[in-house]
């Protein structure tokens, strides 16, 4: 791990200077706020914009605090992941394209250390982001709906974080393997098409990384088998490590793709 600390500092400084530590958490906080708010004020919103006819009555579902956390996770799953992947996917391929990588690759750094330093910084940003997201969601849920169970929160939070680590690993691996455009397509395909496939025909299997995001809450509700949860967790972690391994190898192999 030659120069890991130096590279880590460089990555941190870069992420800090491009404000990534600030705006990605804020986006997640907004996403976390949106669901409790819109659900609580749904009737008012409909009255204000919906042209509701006279004497119209609608039965609103009685939402429990956990439902809202689940809804917020759903928001993170679509827009949150989109923002996160869009800002991370160029991490390695863009450096190759604009020639910055030449400066680094000419030095005796280990590719493993470089890849891991990027991974560590991104997972830190992710951690701060979902902390902000969950914080905002929990704040509004407690104000508007009622208190939440701390245990359920911790479980769903850590489960979701492990899923995000998998997403980052896939994104970085694609970024190491291809040019930015192709990497974006491939990473989005793996994560989003995977989710869609899991949604459509996912009832035929119970263990998959794409299910993990909703398993955090489901585990607490007792609607799934415990073994399914743990197996999904283990498989996701294993896939994350495999992706990191492939990423390092591809980074080394594609070192010649840098623009000089």
């Amino acid at each position, binding site marked *: 791990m030659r120069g890991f600390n130096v590279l880590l500092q460089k990555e941190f400084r870069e992420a800090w200077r491009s404000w990534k530590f600030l705006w990605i958490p804020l986006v997640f906080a907004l996403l976390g706020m949106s669901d409790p*708010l819109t659900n609580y004020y749904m009737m008012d919103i409909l009255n204000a914009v919906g042209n509701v006819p006279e004497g119209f009555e609608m039965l609103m579902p009685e939402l429990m605090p956990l439902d809202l956390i689940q809804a917020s996770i759903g928001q993170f799953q679509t827009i949150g992941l989109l*923002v996160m992947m869009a*800002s991370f996917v160029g991490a390695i391929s863009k450096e190759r394209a604009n020639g910055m990588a030449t400066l680094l690759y000419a030095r005796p750094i280990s590719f493993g250390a470089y890849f891991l330093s990027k991974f560590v910084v991104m997972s830190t940003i992710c951690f701060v982001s979902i902390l902000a997201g969950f914080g905002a969601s929990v704040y*509004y849920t407690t104000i508007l709906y009622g208190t939440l169970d701390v245990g359920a929160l911790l479980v769903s939070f850590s489960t979701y974080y492990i899923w995000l680590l998998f997403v980052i690993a896939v994104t970085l691996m694609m970024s190491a393997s291809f040019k930015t455009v192709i990497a974006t397509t491939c990473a989005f395909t793996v994560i989003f098409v995977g989710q869609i496939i899991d949604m459509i025909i996912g009832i035929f299997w119970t263990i998959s990384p794409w299910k993990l995001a909703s398993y955090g809450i489901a585990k607490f509700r007792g609607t799934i088998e415990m073994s399914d949860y743990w197996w999904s967790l283990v498989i996701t972690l294993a896939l994350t490590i495999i992706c990191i391994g492939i990423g390092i190898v591809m980074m080394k192999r594609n070192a010649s793709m840098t623009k000089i």
Partner: protein
Amino acid sequence: MMEELAKVPWAVIAPLIIVQIILMIVALIDLRKIHATNGPKILWVFIILFANLFGSIAYFIVGRKQS
């Protein structure tokens, strides 16, 4: 006037406004410092100022030119 202000549920609205203002200020500071953007700079000033939340986020995703 003060009574109407007191009626507003501040616990609900204040965080939203704070997040919005922080995002806007950070985006404007960054725009001031950055060398070049994708598209004319003055356009981004208007987008950040008038397309509230969405504008600043859009600036960070597509507006910044990584040099």
